[in-house]
């Protein structure tokens, strides 16, 4: 099987605009910016979280705390998957009690990752509220979960994949639709 590129749905300029729009939406919906913290889900949720936080602090002139969450230990398919997933460090160096957490990930698909992340965050304290921000919502939810802030909704089929590439991790800002095909 091989991955074939079908289309580019977001380019570098779109990416910047989308992140900026997400930041504005978050600020608009959360008047108490001092209660706002952002947590990115490893791996591509992390640079996205940092960019959104950066944008918000530009808008509001205030530092927004950013945390990193690894959800490996909370996965519901841990003993089924191979190879052995490596656990990366979770870094939430601030108190989340009574805070509004903006959870950030690149793609929202089945909702299972978000479910894991919600469980994980509850172990850190009792936030006032949790919101979900994603760059792409591609549908096919398997759990009753929805995003509060969506960069772009892209209807896909199950044999397609969404490839999010970021400068920090992949050297370029773009989102592609790809398809798995026999050679």
């Amino acid at each position: 099987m091989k991955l074939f590129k079908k289309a580019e749905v977001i380019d570098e300029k779109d990416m910047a605009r989308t992140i900026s729009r997400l930041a504005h939406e978050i600020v608009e919906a959360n008047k108490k910016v001092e209660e706002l913290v952002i947590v990115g889900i490893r791996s591509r949720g992390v640079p996205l979280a940092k960019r959104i936080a950066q944008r918000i602090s530009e808008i509001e002139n205030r530092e927004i705390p950013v945390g990193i969450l690894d959800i490996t230990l909370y996965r519901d398919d841990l003993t089924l998957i191979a190879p052995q997933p490596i656990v990366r460090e979770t870094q939430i160096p601030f108190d989340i009690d009574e805070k509004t957490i903006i959870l950030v990930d690149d793609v929202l698909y089945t909702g299972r990752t978000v479910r894991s992340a919600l469980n994980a965050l509850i172990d850190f304290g009792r936030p006032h509220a949790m919101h979900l921000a994603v760059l792409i919502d591609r549908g096919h939810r398997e759990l009753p979960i929805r995003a509060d802030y969506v960069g772009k909704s892209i209807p896909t089929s199950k044999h397609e994949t969404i490839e999010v590439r970021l400068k920090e991790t992949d050297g370029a800002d773009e989102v592609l639709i790809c398809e798995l095909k026999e050679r």
Partner: protein
Amino acid sequence: MVLKRRHLLGIQDLKVEEMELILYQAKAFKEITQRRIKKVPTLRGQTVVNLFYEPSTRTRTSFELAAKWLSADVVNISTSTSSVVKGESLRDMAKTIEAMQADTIILRHGQSGAPHLLSNLVSSSIVNAGDGSHEHPTQSLLDIFTLLEHRPTLNGLVVGIVGDILHSRVARSNIWGLTKMGAKVVVVGPPTLIPVEIERIPVEVAYDLDKTIERFDVLMILRIQLERQQSNFFPSINEYVKFYGLNNERLKRAKEDVLIMHPGPINRGIEIAPEVADGPHSVITDQVTNGIAVRMAVLYLLATGWGEG
């Protein structure tokens, strides 16, 4: 890199990459040990049996917390070889535990090789928590983890392991572990407590602590068992303390940034003076905390690795 093993029986047969993976994972698990709610659901529904044939509050508690913080169900079985018909115990116990469907058995046993025997008798994962004078792999991993919190690398470090090398599983596991990670090991003790041909591992052998202490970046002090005196391994505890006890006076000759370790439990005032054990060079309490993180990493990797033996 994947840890494709069912069992952790010793450090001797671990590859460097496998050790590095365990240590890397332990770092992620250490973060969990510092949370307010120290629990992740990873091993929910799994049963871990702590099977201890020797009393050991420290190691057993450490494994128990590691398993519980991973949400496994933990059963403690403490027994002593003397209370059952000699030798019959392990095989029979293995069958009982097998019937309890234990996923993992943590075994502490007075006989070298007992975990190997157990791994042939049951289908559970086996973690060696100390067998005879053979190995104590998680102790070595936590010692190395602790050192790496204080030093960027073990490459080139000179580690002195001081005391009863002959009877020490901690020494053996650490000799393998430290040398694999690039450190140089010198074992220091009276000739009666240095096992034969140990130079072939290879390590350096020294008998005089005062003459060698200035070379060490790390001093790993072993517990001296009081009953060794009766077997004439040395004339008296008093004489042992005079030659090998680590006190402030002796420490003056050591490097300024020397790290002091001890696997515990400590005979205060015997192999190590209280002011040294609690002093600025000591990382002994770090060893205890890190023990849980390292054991969580081991349990996690064995549970998800399901490789062959």
